[in-house]
């Protein structure tokens, strides 16, 4: 039975920081960054991390899954299953197989290759990356934030799996120790010559040959690398007709373990029926997958790309990534310790945004409590679970609060009304001052609620974002 890519979903955070803004800020110390100051980087809001971005990518997937992989080198917890958290945020059955895959830029391609080789349909792999880099480093002006979800399947495929190979080598082009803030990288020229070129030359020709495919039949090469290295690899492996350029290189930045899948999403928008795509993940070896496009189109990459907003506020970027210690005032000292027992017993409400619907009067409500909120009803124990995550609300009232602690002031919040009777006082995110109005339609998004610095914990809830409609142009 054919196995392949059944669906792919891309999430890019809203702000696209100009690389020129980064280079300009560092021109006094690192004038050579100017040579890399082309394009922009997709940069996450303070309340986004690899988990929330993975959630956004995963919710763009249509179709059922029975196994969930969260793939990232930048997950917030060293010991806590992010896949279990994501599963509950997605409100999928607890019997779903869950796995975190991490600690290599092949975090996504290795489990994907394994699924495809085993012809395992219904595997959802979600790669997400929000990596921190030292100010003025090459990593800083290169790394972008993104999340991509891929669902394997047998039917209505975007691309069929042809064959694949893997290679493990302890090639330490860069590393990040447990608990370390930043990557430590070695010289770029060595990485290209000894790493990319030699590793891929060891894998790609053999893979093609085994499948009786001439190198010039490959239409596209997707590889987590710079565009230059990708072109060099294509040349060295004889992929003379392969498109190697990716818009994501300049518009998103290097999305780490999510980069191969991001490149795949972009390629699937361009590919014609029958096009061969060579998908390669590089990181202490490589995973190579040969895919044949079916001609079925997706616009998930373009939609995500078009939803961006240009940004040149480098200081805000530093603050969102906690690279400068802003003085947020004493309100930031508020203790946000989480009572895990309280969270656990009500986690479907918190992580999944599942409220209630009264079986007597039909009123929908959040939170879900023992007694119905409808003043005409007030019946006890009549609440059926009712999900709010995919609902659209309407802003009834709001404020932009400059006194409240928020790492992205002002803290915008308001009362949001929902069809069916619910009103919820909600925080808004990705919302600038002056942008909100009563009557706005808002969508619900899973975000970081609070970060408990004293205890190294973070908790999540849902926030409202104004529906901005189709991007113009």
């Amino acid at each position, binding site marked *: 039975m054919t196995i392949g890519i059944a669906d792919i979903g891309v999430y890019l955070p809203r702000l696209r920081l100009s690389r020129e803004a980064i280079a300009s800020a560092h021109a006094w110390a690192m004038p050579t960054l100017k040579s890399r100051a082309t394009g922009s980087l997709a940069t996450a809001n303070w309340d986004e991390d690899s988990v929330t971005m993975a959630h956004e990518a995963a919710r763009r997937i249509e179709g059922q899954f029975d196994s969930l992989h969260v793939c990232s080198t930048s997950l917030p917890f060293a010991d806590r299953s992010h896949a279990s958290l994501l599963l509950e945020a997605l409100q999928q059955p607890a019997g779903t197989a869950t796995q975190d895959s991490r600690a290599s830029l092949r975090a996504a391609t290795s489990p994907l290759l394994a699924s495809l080789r085993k012809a395992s349909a219904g595997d959802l792999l979600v790669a997400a990356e929000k990596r921190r880099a030292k100010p003025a480093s090459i990593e800083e002006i290169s790394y972008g934030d993104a999340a991509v979800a891929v669902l394997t399947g047998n039917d209505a495929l975007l691309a069929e799996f042809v064959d694949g190979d893997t290679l493990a080598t302890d090639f330490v082009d860069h590393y990040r120790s447990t608990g370390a803030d930043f990557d430590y990288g070695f010289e770029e020229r060595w990485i290209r010559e000894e790493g990319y070129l030699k590793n891929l030359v060891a894998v790609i020709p053999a893979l093609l040959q085994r499948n009786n495919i001439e190198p010039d039949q490959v239409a596209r090469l997707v590889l987590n690398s710079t565009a230059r290295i990708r072109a060099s690899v294509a040349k060295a492996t004889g992929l003379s007709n392969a498109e190697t350029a990716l818009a994501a290189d300049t518009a998103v930045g290097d999305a780490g373990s999510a980069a191969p899948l991001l490149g795949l999403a972009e390629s699937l928008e361009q590919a014609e029926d029958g096009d061969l795509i060579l998908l390669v993940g590089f990181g202490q070896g490589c995973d190579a997958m040969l895919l044949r496009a079916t001609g079925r189109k997706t616009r998930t990459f373009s939609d995500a790309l078009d939803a961006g907003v240009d940004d040149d506020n480098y200081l805000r970027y530093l603050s969102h990534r906690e690279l400068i210690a802003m003085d947020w005032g004493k309100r930031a000292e508020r203790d946000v310790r989480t009572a895990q027992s309280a969270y656990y017993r009500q986690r479907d409400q*918190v992580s999944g945004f599942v409220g209630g619907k009264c079986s007597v009067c039909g009123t929908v409500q959040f939170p879900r409590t023992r007694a119905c909120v409808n003043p005409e009803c007030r019946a006890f124990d009549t609440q059926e679970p009712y999900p709010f995550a995919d609902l659209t609300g309407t802003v009834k*009232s709001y404020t932009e*609060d*400059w*006194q409240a602690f928020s790492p992205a002031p002002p*803290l915008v919040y308001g009362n949001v009304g929902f069809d069916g009777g619910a*009103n919820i*006082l909600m925080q808004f995110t990705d919302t600038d001052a002056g942008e909100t109005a009563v009557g706005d339609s808002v969508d619900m998004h899973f975000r970081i609620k609070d970060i408990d610095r004293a205890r190294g914990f973070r908790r999540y*809830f849902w926030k409202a974002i104004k529906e901005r409609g189709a991007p113009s142009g």
Partner: protein
Amino acid sequence: MRPVAEGIRDKVAVIGMGCSAFGERWDMSAADLMVEAFTEALADAGIGRDDIDAAWLGVFFDEQNIGKSAIPLSNALRLNNIPVTRVENLCATGTEAFRGAVYAVASGAADIALAVGVEKLKDTGFAGLPERTNGTFEDLWLPNSTAPGAFAQLASAYSHKHGVSMNDLRRAMAHVSVKSHDNALKNPKAHLRRKITSEQVLNAPPVAYPLGVLDCCGVSDGAACAIVARPEIARKLGKADIVGVKSVQLSISNGVESGHSSWDGAHTATTRRAAAKAYAEAGITDPAKELGMIEVHDCFSVTELVVMEDLGLSEAGRATTDILDGRYDAAGQIPCQIDGGLKCFGHPIGASGLRMLYEVYLQLLSRADDRNLDNVEFGLTHNLGGIPNRNVASISILGALSP
């Protein structure tokens, strides 16, 4: 609504009141402030400390004040091992203490009872109110709102509901603040005593849209207290004019405003409920005509504006016009915040309800010096604790004791 119970009208007399100066009382502890208010009230009542049968202490922030329990009041005043109860009900805390004392006397359980409210807010080290928790579950999902932000939302909803432009609304809100500053000039105990202009209010630094700094009340230290007694005790004390308690009512949110779409975000439902009960208990049928003065919970300018409608004093959608016409100014039909209000007298939370009652008491006895109003038959106080979504509203009405 069910008919009001028999009620407490004229079953209790206020025989003495005291109020500390409000403000940044850097040299005073909460205990010191309680003593300041209490000694004034005790002298006013003309009784001895040991004549008090029971006491109630209202204090809000555990974290900034004197901790839990009622012991700090008993300690500060060296009370005679009488029963003392600590109460807390957000910004209605002071009124809640008053309610406890009044009910004790009305029930016959006490002949003379004391209510003290106190708050020491200026030990936090920053401006505005301290942070507080909403509970282990609510903290998982409720926004980290502030008091100004929570109340500021009234403005956008009110503007939308009544078709009042934000500019017109903000001009009326500015007038609310200007009026209270004017009034406070005549009050030596007020925290903020300086004249301001509407332009200053409108151009002040933003706090929470559309509120600026001058739309917000003072954050102050202070204490206030009341001594209440059975009417015959008041008469025995030889008091010529006796102030009687006409009504004390509370109304508490039950989650409808925060969870049900029937709430429009533009009014405070509990104020309406408490007002209806209070008017009935006090025997007031036309509050706009019968109330000679009001002290309302002007934590923020927009709160006062909205509350004018919730109290039934302005018609729906007319508060902006009434305010700009001066209806609630010192010389207007219903003077509001004649003592400066929370805005300028200040807002030490646990004391505020009793501070309002103190002004009504002074006015009823014509002891308010430069601020004395003519023809005050009834005076109303109103607190709104919490946020518009979930709150505690309290209303008290005082008037000359009827025989």
